[in-house]
């Protein structure tokens, strides 16, 4: 283990380390802490510049209720869910199929096709912006929920396929080989042999894609216009304009937007980290 375990440096060092940890964490999360404190303050504190002091009044419930009653926050949150969930389902499903094909079969274009998915995953969004927007306008998908999740699903399929293909490739090939010798049909091998084995990968991808898409801001701006189809990230920006200098309300809205991915991360932490690191490192 590197660095050397702190315990080997003696009791004092261990104690000092454990005492310093929360301090370091506090400094690291200071911005978040400050915004949380702001979100439970009253307007008076904001105007008098009371940032770190004890709140002169606790307005937590009032502030969060105000966000919902004075703005479209509820619609935005619902839209985010309606965009994110179908994206996860479609992109992971497509990637299971494509990843299986690219990992198991040996055909000439397997590697180039795989690289196409990998490359597509790294391109700047701007190179897609004009054609995708134009296409959405032409097909009536502009400013709709479906227009957004279809695009996200297609784009995330690149990352998911990269991940799935590497995951399936690492499975023991004998399993598939012996099933073939037994005369099992190809799609049955996929369904009964491979799919149960890739469950951890599906979980990892689901949390990752959920977070990526939930936090998207660029496409929300490109593909929506009004309030009806806006997700929470774009919504929070709109709120920021609406609640000028009402920082207690802006903070409350921001934290609301952050809660679902944070929850997702805490509930599925192991899968999340496995996804972030394994997908790329192999």
């Amino acid at each position, binding site marked *: 283990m590197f660095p050397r375990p702190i315990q080997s440096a003696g009791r004092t060092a261990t104690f000092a380390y454990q005492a310093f940890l929360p301090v370091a964490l506090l400094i690291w999360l200071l911005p978040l802490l400050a915004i949380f404190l702001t979100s439970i303050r009253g307007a008076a504190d904001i105007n008098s*510049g009371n940032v770190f002091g004890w709140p002169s009044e606790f307005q937590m419930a009032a502030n969060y209720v105000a966000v919902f009653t004075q703005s479209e926050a509820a619609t935005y949150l619902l839209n985010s869910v309606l965009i994110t969930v179908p994206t996860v389902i479609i992109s992971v499903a497509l990637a299971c199929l494509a990843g299986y094909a690219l990992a198991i079969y040996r055909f000439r274009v397997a590697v180039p096709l795989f690289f196409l998915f990998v490359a597509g995953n790294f391109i700047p969004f701007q190179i897609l912006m004009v054609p995708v927007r134009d296409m959405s306008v032409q097909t009536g998908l502009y400013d709709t929920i479906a227009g957004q999740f279809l695009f996200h699903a297609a784009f995330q399929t690149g990352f998911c396929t990269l991940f799935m293909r590497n995951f399936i490739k690492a499975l023991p090939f004998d399993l598939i080989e012996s099933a073939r010798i037994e005369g099992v049909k190809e799609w049955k091998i996929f369904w009964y042999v491979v799919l149960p084995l890739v469950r951890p990968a599906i979980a990892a991808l689901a949390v990752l894609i959920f977070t990526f898409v939930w*936090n998207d801001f660029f496409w929300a701006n490109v593909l929506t216009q009004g309030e009806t189809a806006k997700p929470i990230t774009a919504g929070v920006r709109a709120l920021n304009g609406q609640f000028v200098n009402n920082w207690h309300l802006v903070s409350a809205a921001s934290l609301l937007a952050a809660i679902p991915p944070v929850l997702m991360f805490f509930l599925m932490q192991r899968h999340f980290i496995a996804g972030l690191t394994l997908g790329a490192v192999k």
Partner: protein
Amino acid sequence: MSDATAPQAASWMRRNKLAIAPWLFLIPALLFFAVYVVIPIFESIWLSLFEWNGLYRADGSSTAVWVGLDNYVKLWDDPKFWTSLKNNVLWLLLYMLAVPVGLGIALFLNQKTPGMRIYKSLFFFPFVISQVVVGLIFGWFYNPDFGVVGQIFKWLYCEETVNIVGNVTFKCSGTVPDILSNPDLATYGIIAAGLWPQIAYCMILYLTGLNNVASDQIEAGRLDGAKGWRMLWFIVLPQLRPATFIAVVVTVIGALRSFDMIAIMTQGGPFGSTNVLAHYMFETAISEYGERYGYGSAIATVLFLIMLVYISYFLWRMYQDEKGGR
């Protein structure tokens, strides 16, 4: 007669099963990916040779006008383009700090004391939050009147005086810096905000890497008297190479993709001083003064070509690994 061809077709299917099956599995993903990702790339490059406001005539034909390389010539003489490009370079260079700082925090946290798991995940927190929220938090942080920077400045440089009536006034030795309104500071302010989640990302990559460092090599190093920096440099870092590679790749891509923070914190201002290519392209293509799809596409093409260098490098590395594998 038709009965005779059916079994024949079926047996052809069966004989070529292993050649056909992969395509059946691939087609949905490939089709989807082609329509939304692959084809638009070429469309964008093609569009960058036109001047177009995104409108169509009544008969459905596009109003785009062929201008050849004109958009690129204009780009060359566009000071805003050069400012954006310069800022992109700045982002790229300063964003790289996330890699060593992330490694530093990972080394600090790589201990086994009670509650360590919770600490690690709390340190990772900033990455999970949307960049929009991070941008808003830091925008408020930097706000000279209501924010943290203003408060700290007051503590350091201001004297509080209470007059007879009880009104509090501040006498300050200077004005509070308004970071995001200062063309010289604004970009650094945004990059600092962007570094926060990026450091968390690099940290988690290194924490996972440190988990997999071979302990026998560390022990062997210790026996040979290596410790501290020498141990880190000669024994640990070489084993962390995959983590470093990914950390650099995601940081480069993050830096070139930076859009959210700029859109939230300054919208490219003041006076275009914080623009980067990604944001300038968006601003140009969809602006209040009418859409300029052709010019926007030209900016996007330049950004794409820059990114292509990194993508090619990444693919080349992957190809080397593939050849080594099965």
